[in-house]
């Protein structure tokens, strides 16, 4: 029996606003407990929500980014439940009329192909505060700094069959929101949180099985593992004739298991109803068009341009567009190098290796895009051999800013002066008559091997700086 995983995702993105969704409190991460609060965030009596313009705009930007329909009239609803980090006893969310409706988001996969994910909806809502269990012995402490931070919850159809697809989607979503500048997508700070709805069914089956919801998986690293562990648990249940219970489960990376969230196990009825404190959000076409005109180039468009206009492979284009910083580095580098293919090769080769070795992201790169661009340009104009270029790259990485200066200081300049090379070649021919005779007597096939001797000697004489193409050309001419 082969089991197929069926997964749908709910991703909570923290939007990059200065203030909260319904109050003027700051949203910065890591402030002292309960300092980023106003009467509204504490749900003090008589306080009322007033919607943040930036949260609405960013939701529209996202909707346009995934090619979704924007709800011309959307509303906020109250989702009622008691929890100490939910100060009002209800969360303001969009249940009935979300601001972003259906769309399709193209996700590039490892193999260069495109996996279209159907977006069901994306809606605005407020985040809850934090329960702190280790600060005060015997108690749980409540910090409401995060309460009211604007979230966009992005819900997909159950289109995922493999963990790889899920990870690819999340990476592409991360790329999209950072491109759009609407979220920093920082998983470790909770700016991007992922819930996976997972069920199993036998291959070929069309009905869905009973699903569980894996909550708040906060790193790419854990997602594949969590999916694997939960799928195995469900498979064991199903194969032993038991059934899967529809519930929320938490992945514990330390124990490598998922477990039921007991505290939320109490059957709840959220009693959604339209929030009478907030009027409908009405968005006109002019607003949508104005926002559309101001959108940056999206990853999918960039990918297309990189392959068709710049001649890159789909694979390279996918890698270079996976986040905005990488794409911006690439484009800045190309502006200097004027050679997109070589730039792609350097970025995905030596630069990527150097970053990985030191565990750095592209934004922490020690080489400037202009520096790398000039390096590539110096290869193309014959100043550097590719071997010497690696030495220059090491110099750049070590913090030396100027490519030409490194070439100068280390004496790495390739000898491309035909006069200087001619002298070397003439000397060689004069000093090695036996080898010259042997070469001249040989057939074409043998000559190709024998010329290696002269190349090696000439390189030695030029201290490795002879331009190999030019040298070959001169030798053939003078020996022939």
């Amino acid at each position, binding site marked *: 029996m082969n089991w197929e995983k069926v997964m749908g995702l709910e991703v909570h993105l923290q939007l990059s606003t200065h203030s909260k969704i319904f109050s003027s409190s700051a949203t910065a991460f890591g402030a002292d407990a309960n300092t980023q609060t106003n009467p509204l965030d504490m*749900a*003090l009596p*008589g306080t009322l929500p007033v919607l943040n313009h930036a949260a609405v705009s960013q939701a529209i930007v996202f909707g346009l980014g995934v090619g979704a329909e924007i709800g011309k009239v959307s509303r906020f609803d109250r989702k*009622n439940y008691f929890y100490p980090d939910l100060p009002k006893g209800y969360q303001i969310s969009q249940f009935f009329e979300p601001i972003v409706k259906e769309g399709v988001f193209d996700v590039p996969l490892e193999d260069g192909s495109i996996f279209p994910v159907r977006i069901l909806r994306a809606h605005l809502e407020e985040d809850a505060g934090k329960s702190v269990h280790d600060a005060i012995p015997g108690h749980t402490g*409540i910090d409401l700094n995060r309460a009211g931070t604007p979230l966009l919850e992005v819900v997909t159809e159950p289109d995922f069959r493999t963990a790889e697809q899920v990870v690819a989607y999340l990476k592409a979503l991360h790329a999209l929101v950072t491109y759009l500048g609407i979220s920093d997508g920082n998983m470790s700070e909770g700016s991007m949180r992922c819930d996976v709805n997972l069920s199993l069914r036998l291959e070929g089956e069309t009905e869905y099985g009973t699903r569980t919801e894996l909550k708040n998986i906060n790193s790419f690293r854990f997602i594949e593992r969590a999916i694997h562990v939960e799928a195995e648990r469900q498979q064991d249940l199903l194969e032993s004739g038991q059934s899967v219970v529809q519930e929320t489960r938490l992945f514990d990376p330390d124990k490598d298991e998922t477990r039921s969230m007991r505290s939320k196990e109490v059957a709840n*009825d959220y*009693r959604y*109803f339209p929030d009478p404190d*907030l009027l409908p959000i009405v968005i006109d076409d002019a607003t949508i068009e104005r926002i559309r005109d101001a959108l940056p180039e999206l990853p999918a468009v960039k990918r297309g341009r990189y392959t068709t206009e710049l001649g890159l492979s789909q694979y390279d284009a996918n890698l270079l567009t996976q986040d905005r910083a990488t794409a911006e580095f690439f484009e800045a580098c190309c502006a200097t190098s004027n050679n997109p293919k070589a730039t792609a090769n350097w970025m995905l080769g030596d630069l990527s290796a150097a970053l990985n070795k030191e565990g750095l992201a592209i934004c922490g790169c020690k080489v400037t895009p202009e520096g790398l661009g000039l390096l590539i340009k110096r290869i193309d104009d014959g100043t550097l051999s590719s071997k010497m270029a690696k030495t220059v790259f090491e110099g750049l990485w070590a913090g030396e800013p100027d490519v030409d200066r490194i070439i100068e200081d280390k004496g790495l300049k390739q000898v491309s002066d035909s006069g200087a090379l001619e002298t070397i070649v003439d000397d060689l021919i004069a000093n090695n008559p036996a080898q010259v005779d042997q070469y001249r007597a040989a057939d074409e096939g043998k000559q190709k091997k024998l010329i290696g001797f002269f190349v090696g000697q000439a390189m030695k004489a030029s201290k490795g700086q002879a331009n190999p193409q030019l040298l070959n050309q001169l030798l053939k001419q003078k020996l022939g």
Partner: protein
Amino acid sequence: MTEPFETISSLAKQLDAGRVSSRELVEDAIARTETLNSALNAVIALDKPGALAAADKADKARADGSTSPLLGVPMLHKDIFCTRGVQTSCASKMLADFVPPYDATVVKKLDAAGMVSLGKCNMDEFAMGSSNETSFFGAVKNPWDLNRVPGGSSGGSAAAVAAGLAPLATGTDTGGSIRQPAALCGITGLKPTYGRVSRYGMIAFASSMDQAGPMARTAEDCALVLNAMAGHDPLDSTCADISVPDYSAGLEQSIEGLRVGIPKEFFSSHLNDGVAATVTAAIKELEAAGAVIVDVSLPSTDLGVSTYYVIAPAEASANLSRYDGVRYGYRCDNPSDLQDLYLRSRTEGFGEEVKRRILIGTFTLSAASYDQYFMKAQQVRRLIADEYESVLNDVDVIAGPSAPNTAFVLNDGSKSITDMYMEDVFTIGANLAGLPAISVPAGLVDGLPVGMQLIGSRFGEAQLLNIAHQFQRRTDWHSLTPDLEGLTG
């Protein structure tokens, strides 16, 4: 001792002329409150030092040339408005010790106009009630008859003004909570259009209907106060960004030719005969002033009660979830765990009527009942609002009784819960539709005051006040006062 039953406009003239100081008015008001309140229980917090300081400040401002019409006039706030540094309990054990760190916008605006707040008025707990018997601090007594209720939920405000403790008290009206107690205590009370006055800092009962308004002796005074209370507030999304006219400017206009609609459903079997006769006579008075009386129909009037008692408790059930014993408010002793903390804090902190409404509201919002009750009620609400709108396309205002009865006796065990809810039958429509409405004294039945209600078009407060003022120029029901001797004796 200054005269207790002065109007704001009269006090303003005396203050302007230097015949009296704000300090004298405030000291006298405090003294009167201290004398009468043990009988009335209308005031549940007096802020003497704050009031005296504000009075001195007002006197100084006047000496410096300021002439705001409200400057230095004493007043009281319903204890539903957050007052920075002063107890704000909503007459609930839940908030008995709550001291807000901020002012409600209404409080801020009246402070800015120079009014002097003496303290806070008793009310039905969380504004849920029509008799002021649900207060954690005990029932308020009607100054016209201490054995009777003052109405509710703004019963403390109505009783305080009626007994001359202050010429103004603020009230809030979700289903009649300004108009019904105003009627039962013989004063003038205005519920503005939903969105006319900011709700920020006003403790929420039913968010789509709550509205603050003035309770005073005359329509003229209500106009003066509304000028200061109304207007846009960036802290309330449902506060309309519509300019505030001078509500005093048009008071003297003739009402000749104005069309006044009388809905036949307002004179139904619910209505006490004496009240019916009194209100009919008052309508005749409008006719005598030149108004054209037109018979109209609001066929869904009775349905309004069912609609209101679905929607208001539903909204309240969510609005009152924040009272969980965590950040402020009542917290039970030694909670064993989180659920115990919630359960006991809420069960011990809320009174019976509040709990009853939370339960009903929770039920009508639950998945199994949502469509049958909550959604249905919101649809019927639109039908009712449409009926009002179509009648108001034909007439300028609607007139009728404010309440079906005069003040009833305290602790009347014969009244069932739903009988009590029927007290609001004539006032609820204006809340469901968001319309402005005013109650003016229209006469006495067996020595108890009766109110006539006028309902206007959205943001049509100026016209309501104009008609009410013209009525009060022709009648002196608003000048009648209860016998204070009986209160101190």
